[in-house]
């Protein structure tokens, strides 16, 4: 029985979050919220006689992404017209790049199952986004707010061989875009869209078979589910002797299946030709070099630094850099004099647990990095122990109050005072003569139980170290007696 492997390439459309659109001065806004047709002008609504003018910032953002993806930034750029008819494309053509894109021949490293794989990036080019069609029964309504927003289309080589790799690539790419500050990564706002090109072949062969294209995937989850379904569909088809047909597919969220889209509305022949309204763009080396200097530390470099300089584990470092906001949170905490590993443990452990349970992102968390550090310092000062600290964090998470306030309000300060603890230890020893005798008779394990009783008495607030020390002394004292 032949084993099959998927061959997957991803095309990602990322909006470049500039102030104004790609070819006109209309503001770039959240098109899921702005009232329809309120950020439009003669140019982006394709009135007769209008002309495009290139937004320099969009080009700069594109260069940043190209550099972050290890691409060659091409000196000679030419925009091109891509012709097809669709109501959300007012000119009847999209201004894009065809033969002379902004960037080419790069790569992105992804980590799957503790292995690093390099996924090739074929090219990245600039184009303008389309408007939106809203379906209302027997008609469709067209909103052109989004028409003309700058888009960077990033095309990968068909190097991915599993759904896990697809997910890793998507997450990594999104993280990089957010790190660069060119896109905010919120896919529910439509600022980032994926298309998957999928084919299958016998595992280990180098055939490149007919592929299908799955469009309009608006979340990583949809990307994953759609890919899974399509791979299985194709394998089943091929195993039963069928042929994969080159088609454009959509993904039905409810059924979890990929479906063929009507091809008639999608022009096969885009009739690309150089955009006569835009002279060529020559991107000089000096400009690229200047931009390169402004690149922030990207996830991989940051991860390496966390491992090498801060001594974090590969696992923790990876988790902390995967999302820009998390990395920023972590680094803000480190501004105080506090142990990096401890902070890492708290963030990736307890804080993440609370965030997941509440379904919030780190940007929404009420515990500031500084507040977390305060909590850690209370533990270091032995004002509270680790267990109490967890409870305190939970309260901080709910209320946004500081650790100090909560410890005070709830009287959670750790009991470290020897005389107070001695008294409680006496009580416990007197109340439990049999376990004491058994311990003295050799049952070492009961020591822990006895300490546990003290913790119970003090509602967990006893300083465990001190309790251990005093208990040991007292019991040894009894032995000698």
């Amino acid at each position, binding site marked *: 029985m032949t084993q099959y492997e998927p061959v997957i390439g991803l095309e990602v459309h990322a909006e470049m979050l500039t102030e104004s659109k790609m070819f006109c001065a209309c503001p770039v806004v959240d098109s899921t919220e702005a009232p329809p*047709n309120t950020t439009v002008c003669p140019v982006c609504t394709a009135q007769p006689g209008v002309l495009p003018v290139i937004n320099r910032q969009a080009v700069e953002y594109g260069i940043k992404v190209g550099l972050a993806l290890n691409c060659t930034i091409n000196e000679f750029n030419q925009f091109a017209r891509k012709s097809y008819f669709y109501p959300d494309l007012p000119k009847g053509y999209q201004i894009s790049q065809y033969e002379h894109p902004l960037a080419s021949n790069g790569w992105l490293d992804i980590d799957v199952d503790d292995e690093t794989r390099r996924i090739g990036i074929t090219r990245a080019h600039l184009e303008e986004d389309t408007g939106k069609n809203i379906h209302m029964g027997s008609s469709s309504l*067209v909103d052109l707010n989004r028409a003309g927003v700058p888009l960077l289309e990033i095309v990968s080589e068909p190097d991915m061989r599993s759904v896990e790799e697809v997910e890793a690539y998507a997450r990594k790419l999104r993280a990089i875009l957010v790190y660069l500050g060119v896109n905010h990564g919120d896919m529910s706002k439509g600022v980032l869209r994926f298309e998957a090109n999928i084919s299958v072949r016998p595992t280990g062969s180098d055939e490149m078979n007919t592929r299908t294209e799955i469009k309009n995937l608006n979340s990583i989850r949809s990307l994953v589910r759609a890919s899974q379904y399509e791979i299985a569909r194709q394998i089943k088809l091929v195993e039963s002797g069928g042929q994969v047909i080159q088609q454009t597919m959509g993904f039905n969220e409810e059924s979890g299946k990929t479906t063929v889209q009507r091809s008639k509305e999608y022009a096969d*022949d885009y009739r690309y030709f150089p955009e006569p309204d835009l*002279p060529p763009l020559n991107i000089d080396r000096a400009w690229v070099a200047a931009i390169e200097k402004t690149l922030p530390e990207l996830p991989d470099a940051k991860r390496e630094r966390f491992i090498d300089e801060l001594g974090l584990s590969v696992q923790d470092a990876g988790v902390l850099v995967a999302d820009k906001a998390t990395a920023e949170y972590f680094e803000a905490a480190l501004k105080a004099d506090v142990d990096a590993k401890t902070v890492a443990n708290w963030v990736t452990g307890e804080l993440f647990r609370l965030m997941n349970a509440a379904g919030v992102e780190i940007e929404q968390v009420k515990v500031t990095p500084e507040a977390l550090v305060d909590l850690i310092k209370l533990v270091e000062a032995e004002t509270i122990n680790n267990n109490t600290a967890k409870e305190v964090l939970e309260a901080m998470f709910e209320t946004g109050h500081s650790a100090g306030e909560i410890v005070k309000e709830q009287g959670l300060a750790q009991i470290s005072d020897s005389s107070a603890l001695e008294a409680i230890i006496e009580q416990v020893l007197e109340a439990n003569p049999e376990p004491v005798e058994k311990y003295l008779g050799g049952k070492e394990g009961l020591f822990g139980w006895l300490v546990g009783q003290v913790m119970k008495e003090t509602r967990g607030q006893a300083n465990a170290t001190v309790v251990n020390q005093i208990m040991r002394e007292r019991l040894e004292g009894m032995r000698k007696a």
Partner: protein
Amino acid sequence: MTLSLEQVTHIAELARLALTDEEKERFRDQLSAILDYAARLQEIDTSAIPPMANVLPVDTVMRDDVARLGLPPEQILANSPDQEDNMFRVPVILE
């Protein structure tokens, strides 16, 4: 060279023109004549010649990223034959 009727039909589809049969025949003849005439270009050796998509002595024209409000919906929609809720209305787009 003569275009076939299928070719003419295909081009009309790409261009979204609902040509009548009479028009298709007429265009078939006229376009074929024009393309025949244009075929003389093939006589010229252009292997070493770059295409001239742009005669201008300029390149790299860009603008600053400054946002400016355009026109209000009423003005943009003023010429539209069919609209609803400040949007252009068209027959449903089938997916």
